[in-house]
């Protein structure tokens, strides 16, 4: 910016002085350097401190320069934009650092052997062994929970959106809300008292699945409900006006139109319960051996495995815990990617 453009009024009232596009990046770079310099000079050692100083400098600096050159309105606009960027970075930093930490520590023992062997062959304190039994247990427990929750959840949502009027619908909505807030340990205790203590069944993967369904159903109901509400009423009417019965309209028109969103919701619900530890701790226990039958005897699972390895405390067990954590994160990430893929594949077509 030359001195002239700063003070002479522009020829056209529609054209104001504007800062170049690289301005924001320059301010960001300068405030990062300055923030680092200040904290080094003041002898501050924490990364958080210099980052905060840099963030403040960035927001303040772009406002000051922009107010001087572009005017107050654009300066306020820049401030809002900078705040959004700072908030974005604040949100991303913990995520990135968590992922980095897990990958760095988990990759050490994660290999084909680790994924295909159980802990039956080695002592917990020794290196070797793997998570096959835990992976199998998690897949079975989560699979069973999904088999229970998806029909119940989707049908409940269909009832609420397509049929529910009056008191019963209000009551169902209320209880779904209440269920959303149930802590996982309470769901676990409930199944423990009912299934194991009163009915006298043993610890099993299925007992854990039931507790996981209690956690999963409200999430499925809520997300499916929102997706069904998005289906335009005109489509329902078009189908009804063709003389199609209501149940068939729901099955052939409403559900296909919203199946992408429903799948995404189900996948997110699965991701939410995959990492649950409390119900598994109470109902499934854990084992170092492969138990492929989810209806009998304790089973292992990934969250439980991580917990057990961590409490063991040996170097080799720590490595295994991190590798299992990495597997768990990767599993959930793959689920999310699959959900996005299905949502895109099934989304109503608009192409010509």
């Amino acid at each position, binding site marked *: 910016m030359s001195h002239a453009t700063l003070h002479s009024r522009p020829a056209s009232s529609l054209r104001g002085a504007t800062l170049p596009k690289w301005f924001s990046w320059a301010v960001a770079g300068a405030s990062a350097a300055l923030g680092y310099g200040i904290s080094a000079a003041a002898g501050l050692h924490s990364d958080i401190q210099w980052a905060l100083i840099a963030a403040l400098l960035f927001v303040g600096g772009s406002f000051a320069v922009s107010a001087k050159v572009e005017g107050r309105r654009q300066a306020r606009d820049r401030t809002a934009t900078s705040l959004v960027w700072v908030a974005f970075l604040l949100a991303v930093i913990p995520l990135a650092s968590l992922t980095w930490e897990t990958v760095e520590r988990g990759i050490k023992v994660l290999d084909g052997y680790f994924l295909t062997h159980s802990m039956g062959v080695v002592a917990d304190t020794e290196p070797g062994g793997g998570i096959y039994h835990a992976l199998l247990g998690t897949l079975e427990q989560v699979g069973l929970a999904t088999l229970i929750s998806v029909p119940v959840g989707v049908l409940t949502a269909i009832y609420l959106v397509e049929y529910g*009027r009056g008191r019963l619908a209000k009551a169902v909505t209320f209880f779904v809300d209440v269920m959303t807030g149930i802590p996982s340990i309470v769901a676990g205790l409930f199944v423990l008292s009912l299934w194991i203590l009163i009915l006298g069944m043993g610890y099993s993967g299925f007992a854990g699945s039931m507790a996981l369904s209690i956690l999963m159903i409200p999430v499925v109901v809520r997300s499916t409900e929102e997706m069904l509400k998005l289906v*335009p009423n*005109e*489509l*329902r*009417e*078009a*189908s*009804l*006006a*063709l*003389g*199609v*019965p209501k149940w*068939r*309209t729901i099955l*052939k*028109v409403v559900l*296909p*139109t919203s199946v992408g969103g429903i799948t995404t919701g189900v996948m997110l619900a699965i991701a939410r319960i995959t990492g649950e530890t409390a119900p598994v701790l109470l109902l499934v226990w854990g084992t170092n051996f492969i138990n492929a039958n989810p209806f009998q005897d304790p089973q292992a699972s990934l969250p439980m495995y991580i917990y057990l390895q961590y409490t063991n405390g040996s170097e080799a067990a720590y490595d295994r815990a991190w590798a299992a954590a990495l597997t768990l994160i990767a599993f959930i990430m793959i689920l999310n990617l699959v959900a996005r893929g299905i949502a895109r594949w*099934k989304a*109503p*077509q*608009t*192409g*010509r």
Partner: protein
Amino acid sequence: MAKRIDVSGLNAYYGSFLAIEDISMTIEPRSVTAFIGPSGCGKSTFLRTLNRMHEVTPGGRVDGKVMLDDENLYGAGIDPVAVRREVGMVFQRPNPFPTMSVYDNVAAGLRLNGKYRKSQLDDVVEKSLRGANLWNEVKDRLNKPGSGLSGGQQQRLCIARAIAVEPNVLLMDEPCSALDPISTLAIEDLIGELKERFTIVIVTHNMQQAARVSDRTAFFNLAAVGKPGKLIEIDDTERIFSNPSVQATEDYISGRFG
């Protein structure tokens, strides 16, 4: 196959609100009957009572008689789903099923009702698309999504979908209000052809359109906002637009109202 509609003493409600009051009229088979009148006077509501779509709206309820030839649509034991197969409907905004191709959209009525033979489906789709004057434009893209067509084509697709189930009566709720003049002309021509086979009832805000396409015109009005809509008169279109028997009709048609 076109049937006569005979309405007598029909009231329609939304909850406790009386939307249209005491309507009686006869709609002749193989003719086009147009409903005109100001917004909110109950034209669409009345149209929707003719195939029992009114009761799909929460709180919607009807009393009175609608005779389709010699059967009362609101009689005891009448299945609304069966009524809607006899009396088809085209909506204001084109609403093809977004998950279905052009072909599947037209076939939807038969497929979803489960009563078809695979071999006859191709014929029905072609016949319906020809009937809706759309065949030449879409015959090479039958498997493309129906929502990829232009607005006017989508509306003709919806008409093809409605006539594919061979109804006796076709109800059209402002079918051209979202379309440009050229698409409107295409649909008006189509209405002229369809009336050879169907009884057609059309709601329109466009007076010229009513004059162009219809044989009979019914004028609806309401006394004030919050009052029920009423049928003011029904007569031959020519007479309604040249020499109506009620002053209110003449005022509305010539733009002197309110």
